[in-house]
């Protein structure tokens, strides 16, 4: 249909008959703030959330510390200075040294890189899988049963044997393709990711089931929106809140799962520092050198806390209903 059939359309005059704007019949107080760009607005709301700002700053400091830090503090984290073993904090080693004389500050930074990456990447995998499966299960009725039973299956799968199988099947090819350290990283992260998407999937599915019944979804269909777009434009943005929460908890969960795997002897190799591994190694020395548990413990907790507050703020900022207030 073209406009030619209705030549009037383009230059239709406003209906002057209806007073509007400042007219008598304007309906009460309306938001009067000037319109802002969407992302500016999100940002504006975000920086007004005190917790989020504090969390963001801490998170940023940690990120900078572990990723930029090594360029400033250039000691090799695996360099062994055997004469300097088990030292307390000093100028030469601000965080002290470990039982082989490796510099703890350098190890904390190297460990932080791995831990942060594990947290973020595993979370992203879990989030992607969880959202995908949740949305598909919620949106396509026919797949719901199968997908939800699959979630049950994954809930029941034991992580450790799974990890062993993955190590056996993929380690060699991965370390050939990416080098041994990246290879094991990919394995760990995938294993953690694919064993922790289930809660997200459940929550997202529940929300999608409810959303699907909302009228705007029907409205979208009535204006010719295809399924893919419908999910992308209408469903996903409306489940962002549970997804953000899952992301927050996901990072924490991944970091902690990794450290628990160290405890069970299946985490990263002991010469591959991560915060979880450093914490685990430090536990034996807790009484002699308390800083060895306090430092990595603090790093993990701070990260988790900051991510949590960051998530709170992000969720509020992404929700236009809250944002307007």
């Amino acid at each position, binding site marked *: 249909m073209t406009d030619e059939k209705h030549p009037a359309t383009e230059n239709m005059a406003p209906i002057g008959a209806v007073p509007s704007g400042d007219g008598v019949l304007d309906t009460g107080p309306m938001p009067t703030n000037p319109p802002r760009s969407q992302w500016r607005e999100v940002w504006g709301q975000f920086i007004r959330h005190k917790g989020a700002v504090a969390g963001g700053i801490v998170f940023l400091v940690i990120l900078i510390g572990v990723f930029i830090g090594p360029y400033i503090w250039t000691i090799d984290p695996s360099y062994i200075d055997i004469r300097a073993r088990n030292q307390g904090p000093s100028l030469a080693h601000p965080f002290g040294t470990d039982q082989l004389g490796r510099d703890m500050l350098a190890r904390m930074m190297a460990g932080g890189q791995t831990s942060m990456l594990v947290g973020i990447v595993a979370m992203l995998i879990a989030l992607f899988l969880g959202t995908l499966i949740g949305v598909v299960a919620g949106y396509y009725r026919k797949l719901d049963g199968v997908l939800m039973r699959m979630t049950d*299956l994954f*809930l029941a799968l034991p992580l450790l044997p799974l990890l062993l199988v993955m190590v056996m099947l993929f380690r060699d090819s991965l370390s050939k393709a990416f080098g041994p350290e990246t290879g094991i990283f990919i394995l760990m992260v995938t294993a953690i990711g694919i064993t922790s998407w289930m809660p997200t999937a459940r929550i997202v599915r529940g929300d999608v089931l409810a959303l699907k019944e909302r009228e705007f979804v029907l409205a979208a269909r009535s204006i010719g929106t295809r399924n893919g777009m419908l999910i992308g434009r209408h469903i996903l943005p409306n489940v962002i809140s549970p997804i953000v929460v899952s992301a927050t908890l996901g990072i*924490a969960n991944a970091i902690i799962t990794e450290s628990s795997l160290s405890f069970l002897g299946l985490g990263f190799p002991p010469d591959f520092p991560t915060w979880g591994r450093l*914490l685990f190694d430090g536990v034996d020395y807790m009484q002699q050198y308390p800083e060895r548990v306090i430092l990595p413990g603090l790093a993990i907790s701070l990260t988790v806390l900051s991510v949590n507050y960051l998530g709170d703020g992000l969720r509020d900022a992404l929700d236009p209903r809250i944002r307007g207030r």
Partner: protein
Amino acid sequence: MLTYFTRRLLLAIPTLLFIGLVIFLLLDLAPGDPTAQLPLTIPPAVREQIRISLGLGEPLPIRFFKWMYQFFIVEPQVVIDSIFGTSFSAGDARVLSWQTRSPVMDIVWQRIPQTLWVVGTAYVVAIIIALPIGIYSAYRQYSIFDNVGTFITMIGFSVPPFFSGVLVIVIFSVNLGWFPSIYDTTLVVNDWDSFMQQLQQMILPVMVLALQITSQLSRFMRASMLDNLNQDYVRTARAKGLGEKSVVLVHVLRNSMIPVVTVIALGIPQIFGGAIITEQVFKVNGIGQLLITAIQANDVPLVQTLTFIFAILIVLFNLIADVLYGLLDPRIRYD
């Protein structure tokens, strides 16, 4: 409701069979060997003999069906026999652990009490603590209490138990000497003294576990309360002249509990599954410790049976959670 329940139960059977198959294949694929923990002084030929005597020589499908048969046919018969003194199961081979060469289910039964004592108590304690915290945090959102609560629960969530566990042992067992660091599973509670002893040895592990569970539950509770506090019916209740206490604790709570109760129900399989690390740290030797030692020893029958029981519980409690949801929320009807 009843038909819904039975329908879901029937559907659960193929699901479980499939899960069983997947677990079986996964464990079969996993590298490792039941003789790995034996000293290297035992020569390879002997190891091979041991493997054959464990039944590892048989082809995969036979092993799978044997296991399924034993699990679903023989083991229930054994239970019936032990209750009624019958002898249906006589002569049938049961699922045997490779480590102990004894029936897997017997070991599992042996482990359940301590797991329930410790993990179960922790769960109950956590619920008792988490709910009030969640309720009050939501009622006074963004108050000091709420902020401090958030802070502590997030810390609780972020500290791995292998650290917090050892920390409390060092503080309370080593330095203060108040509580034992090792859980005595042989303790029989039959009088006040032994009960106190049991309490003493439970306190530390329960503390560590409850901290984690509380952290998560209180977040759920808070969110759910927040959802309900601004509902219209709350205003109606106030307009009736009800006190704040009954408004919050009767009207709001009842509604907020609906999702939380199902979350709690879904957590129950975890109780039976044990808490691997906490049990290990405090030597509680419950189901979690059983699973991890079995995995380390490549005790496949034990691992697959435990995992499968866990799968059954998950499927079952998923169902229970759904049913509970329907019971608690009169709006939901399953037929």
